[in-house]
Structures are given as structure tokens and as C-alpha cells.
């Protein structure tokens, strides 16, 4: 699908609030909107039998955002209403001009479209009294199954056509970069309405130790055209620019693949080298032979792959590995040309139902059928090599004892819960998500599931370690 980007002139006179219709008829009355002495006046007049009720309120445009009421950073997005709500082009509704795809309830919906519209964003850091930046960006709806949720993930795209080609601001303290070309305001994916922090919690747990790429996280409150829109997660977007800003690689030379290793979808670059040099090589060579193992070690980053497999299998990310599986490399001999995997989208992790699933491929239990589970193909061939198995098990023990240590995980998750505690009631009121006590209980479940999982996996991994 071709996407046409509006020119910079599209922003001239851009102010959705002041573009409200002067009056609107509704079911039992009408609204009047007008400016008076610099203030925006919105009045509602309702006619009941024999009674006339007139409600008026007045506010400066900037006063719509209650900055002093939030302890989280605030993102504001101004976008013409028609781009969100009109039947033929509104991105936030099912509408009449949709693209048919979906998961639990597949229907043709506008929100499935890759349309991009101009928007103005403002960002106020936590505790700030005014925005620290205002940017002109492209606005999209993002996600796969989570587009079906009431609150949707929003993608923000910096382009020369709009204004700046990238944002330079330290959105994520401690992150490796302060420059961003694309950002996500994520609805927490399939975890929306549940803990709201499942994927960020997994990231926060491993990010200081694991040799994998991930999307940095910071929670925020979103105002959409001045209306409170709930807690969103600010996330980096996985794209070639992400690797450019983190590793200084050439973004034009990035191969970024997704999905099954046998038939990957190409997000950027090409998959030919991967299919030939990695999959083809593994299919035709026995990796238990040291020479062959060293060859494949030159093509994929073994340390990265081990950490990635430990994280995904330990947390029980059950909508992985064929979906939510991305890997990349820089297509240059003297660059980062080993394939590296990216840990993302752990929205279904730490599910108590799967706490006893060991899930480490052929290393434990019945052999896998690669026709049905192609995501384990590389791993199940690598474990034919004793050096790999020993490194994998040693590293797994490190993760069990350090990264996923139950007390450490509890500290991290409780800290994240505390961060959202003050904001949650308002978010709950907007989206009718779990009541506060149920939400807290769902977050606490991450801690209790990890505690149980850690115990189970320690027994198995130490047993395997002794065996090998």
C-alpha cells in the first residue's frame, strides 16, 4: 500500500480544538462552541419535557491538560478529528474503509490500515509544568492483534516532510541513545486491560544483564486532542534507525527479518543471506562437529542467541517463536554482520498456566516436530554441540540465580506498580479495565509466577548441568 505523506503546509492553522463546529445537535439538545474574550466556551443545552438545562464551561486551550494531576510524563497529540473518527478515513474506528484482518474478531477495519496522518505532539516530563518539546510527526495505528483493543497503540514518525527528521531528547534514562526516528505509544498489546506492564516488566528484569536488543520503556499519560486517553507505554520502535542510533550502523544496510526462520518476512533488506548461510548451512551440516559449529558461530551471535532463548522460554512467551520473533544484522563484512535476535512483545509472559512447561526444545522432554514448531529449529541443531549446551546451561544458571532471582524480580515489578498506582484509577475510569484491587493482584501474579517458575527451572537446569 502506498502512503502519501502530507506536506509541511498541512500543519498551517492546525488547531483541532478551535476547529470545532459552532454548534452540534445531539439526542436531547445541542452543543454551542464559541470563543469569547480569548477563552474557548463549550456549552451544552439539554431539553427535557418542560425543563431546559444549560451547562457551560470555559477553559483556555492549554488548560485542558491537567499537568499537575499526573506523576507520569505527559504526551499530548493534536490531530484533526476526522483522521481519528470519520467513517471513511478515521484511524481509531472500524469505519467503512477498512482492511480485513484480525485475530479474535477479524473484520475489515480502518484501524488495520497503514494510513499516516500529520499530527502535533507535545511532551511534558514527569513533574513538569510545561512541554519541553513540540514536534510535527506522522501518526499511525500500530500493532497486530492489539489493534482490536479499545485503546490502540500509536506510532509516531519523524520525517523531513513534517519538520524534523528525528527527535533528540533523553526519553529513556539510561538508554543507549537519545535520538529517535520512530516511537510507539503502546497500549500494552494483548496485556491491555490486565497488568499494563507485562512486556516492560520482562524488559526491566533482563535489560542490565542480557546481550539482546530490546525496546526501551517509560510509562506516560496520553491526551488525545486535549482529552485524557489513559496510560500508554512509550517504547522504541524496532526499525533500521533503532540500530543506527544504538550501534552506529548504516541503516540502509540493515537486514531485519521477522517470523519463521524457514520463510521469514523481510521488514528491511533481504533474507537471502539468512536462508542460505544459516538455515541452508544448518540443514546440510552436522553442528556437533566443532568445525561446523565454529562456522555457524561466525554467522550468528551465539551469546545473543543463548540469552534470547533463555529469556523467551523462561518467561513462557507463548505467542512466540514464529510470531513476535525478529532478528537483524548489518549487511557489511566489517560491520555487525552476525545475526542478532531482538526480545520484544512479552505480553503473554508469566502465565501461571504454563509455569511448569520446561520449553527448552529437544534439550528436555520429547523431541520437537520442526514442521509444527519451526521456531526451535536453530536451537535444536545447536544443542547437538556440547560446547553450546554447556555455555547455554551455564548462562541459564546465571539467569536463574541473578536476573530472575525472585527477590530482585519482586523489587522491580513492585517499583513499576508503584509508579502507576496513582494514575491507575483514572485510566480504569476511562477504559473500564480491571478494578484497582484486581489490577494490583494481576501485577502481583508476575512476582508469584516467577517465584514458582524459578524454583521449577532451577531443579531442571541443575539436573541437566550435572548430566552434561
Amino acid at each position, binding site marked *: 500500500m502506498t502512503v502519501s505523506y502530507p506536506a509541511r503546509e498541512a500543519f498551517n492553522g492546525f488547531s483541532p480544538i478551535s476547529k470545532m463546529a459552532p454548534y452540534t445537535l445531539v439526542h436531547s439538545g445541542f452543543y454551542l*462552541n464559541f470563543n469569547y474574550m480569548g477563552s474557548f466556551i463549550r456549552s451544552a443545552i439539554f431539553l427535557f419535557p418542560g425543563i431546559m438545562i444549560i451547562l457551560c464551561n470555559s477553559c483556555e486551550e492549554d488548560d485542558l491538560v491537567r499537568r499537575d494531576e499526573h506523576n507520569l510524563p505527559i504526551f499530548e497529540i493534536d490531530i484533526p478529528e476526522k483522521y481519528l473518527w470519520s*467513517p471513511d478515513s478515521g484511524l481509531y*474506528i472500524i469505519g467503512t474503509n477498512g482492511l480485513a484482518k484480525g485475530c479474535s474478531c477479524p*473484520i475489515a477495519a480502518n*484501524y488495520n490500515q497503514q494510513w499516516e496522518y500529520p499530527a502535533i505532539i507535545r511532551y511534558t516530563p514527569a513533574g513538569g509544568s510545561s512541554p519541553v518539546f513540540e514536534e510535527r510527526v506522522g501518526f499511525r495505528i500500530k500493532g497486530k492483534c492489539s489493534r*482490536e483493543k479499545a485503546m490502540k497503540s500509536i506510532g509516531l514518525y519523524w520525517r523531513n516532510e513534517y519538520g524534523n527528521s528525528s527527535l533528540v531528547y533523553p526519553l529513556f534514562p539510561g538508554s543507549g541513545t537519545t535520538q529517535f526516528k520512530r516511537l510507539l505509544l503502546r497500549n500494552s498489546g494483548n496485556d491491555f486491560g490486565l497488568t499494563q506492564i507485562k512486556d516492560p516488566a520482562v524488559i526491566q528484569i533482563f535489560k542490565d544483564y542480557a546481550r539482546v536488543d530490546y525496546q526501551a520503556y517509560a510509562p506516560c499519560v496520553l491526551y488525545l486532542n486535549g482529552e485524557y486517553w489513559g496510560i500508554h507505554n512509550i517504547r522504541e520502535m524496532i526499525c533500521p534507525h533503532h540500530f543506527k542510533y544504538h550501534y552506529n550502523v548504516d541503516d540502509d544496510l540493515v537486514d531485519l527479518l521477522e517470523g519463521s526462520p524457514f520463510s521469514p518476512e523481510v521488514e528491511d533488506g533481504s533474507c537471502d543471506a539468512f536462508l542460505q548461510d544459516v538455515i541452508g548451512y544448518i540443514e546440510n551440516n552436522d553442528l556437533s562437529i566443532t568445525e561446523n559449529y565454529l562456522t555457524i558461530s561466525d554467522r550468528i551471535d551465539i551469546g545473543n542467541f543463548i540469552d534470547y532463548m533463555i529469556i523467551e522460554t523462561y518467561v513462557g512467551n507463548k505467542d512466540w517463536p514464529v510470531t513476535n520473533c525478529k532478528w537483524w544484522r548489518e549487511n557489511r563484512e566489517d560491520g555487525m554482520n552476525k545475526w542478532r535476535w531482538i526480545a520484544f512483545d512479552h505480553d503473554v509472559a508469566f502465565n501461571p498456566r504454563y509455569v511448569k512447561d520446561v520449553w527448552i526444545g529437544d534439550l528436555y522432554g520429547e523431541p520437537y516436530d520442526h514442521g509444527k514448531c519451526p521456531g526451535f529449529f536453530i536451537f535444536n541443531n545447536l544443542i547437538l554441540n556440547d560446547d553450546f549446551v554447556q555455555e547455554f546451561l551455564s548462562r541459564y544458571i546465571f539467569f536463574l540465580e541473578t536476573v530472575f532471582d525472585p527477590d530482585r524480580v519482586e523489587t522491580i515489578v513492585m517499583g513499576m506498580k508503584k509508579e502507576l498506582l496513582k494514575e491507575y484509577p483514572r485510566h480504569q475510569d476511562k477504559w473500564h*479495565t480491571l478494578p484497582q484491587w484486581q489490577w494490583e493482584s494481576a501485577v502481583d501474579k508476575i512476582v508469584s509466577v516467577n517465584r514458582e517458575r524459578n524454583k521449577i527451572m532451577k531443579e531442571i537446569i541443575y539436573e541437566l548441568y550435572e548430566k552434561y
Partner: protein
Amino acid sequence: MSYMRSIRLILIILVLFITNCVKAGEPLWWLTYSQSRYIFSPGIEACYLFHPHIGVNAGISAYIQNPDHSKVSNITHNPSFNFYNANIGLSGYLFRFENQSVGLIAGFKLYYGPDFRKLHYYEEGGYYIYFDASSLKVDYGFDMGIFYSYKKIVLLAKWDFARNRVRLGIGYRFKLKNIP
């Protein structure tokens, strides 16, 4: 899904309970109806008075949804599964006078079906946009109502605090002479 297991269990209990009511021979039966934004919900409700003033009741309802795609941000329920809500509780007569009687009905109510709520007022279109909040949780709460019978015809009006909805019913009193 644990929700689905709970719902199946409740359905089994309801079916057993309603079957028992029929066998006991003194049931009040209602066909019920409730309507909310984009939802039309027919159902049945039964009540068994095992004492001059006290009885038990249970109900179940399905739904048909007809959302206007131009005005909704999401639809989360699979249309092939049309369970909407169920309730179980106690009932009893307040007073009786010749062929007429008035009673109260109250209990626990559980919703699983869609729940369209206002999301945003679209000024240019002049209408509200709605979202379906139901995928996020099962709603449950207290419900109560009143029924009025004249000879064998019984009318019912209920209110629930799970979603703040009204449900109306018209029913039949099968064996009037057996009820003291």
C-alpha cells in the same frame, strides 16, 4: 480461559436448577428482554417458591449485537458465542391480594457479553463514538427487581448493578393453586 470455565460451571448449575424447578411443579417462568447500545438481549428467568414467602430464582440471556461500524472503535466478541449474562438469587412475595400479588427478586449477576460504552463525542459527525469494554473483564454485581402477578400472568422488572441495566420480563405462573 478461566473465565470460560467459570461461565460453563455457572451454566451447568443454572440448567440443573431450572430442571429441578420444572420437576418441583411450582415455577414462575419469564421471557425477559433487555436492550442497551447496539445490544438486544432476550433471555429466560425462572423462580421456584418453595415457601409462602421465599423462593429461589435464576436466569440466563443471550445477545444479538448490531454495532454501527462507523461509530465504534472495536468489537471484541465472537458473534458465534452469544452468552450474555446469568443471574441467581432469592425471591419472595411482599403481599398478595385476591388474584394479584407483588414480590421482590434479588441476587448475583454476571455479564460476559459485549458492553459498548461512550468513548468520545465526534463533533464533526455530531455523534458519540463507542468502544466495547467487555473483553477486559467479566462484570458481576448485585441485581434486584420486582414482579407483579395478575392471575397467571407475571410481569418482571429488574435492575442490575453489574452494568446498571434494566431487564423486563413477561411470564406465566404454572400452578397457581399449589402456591399457598
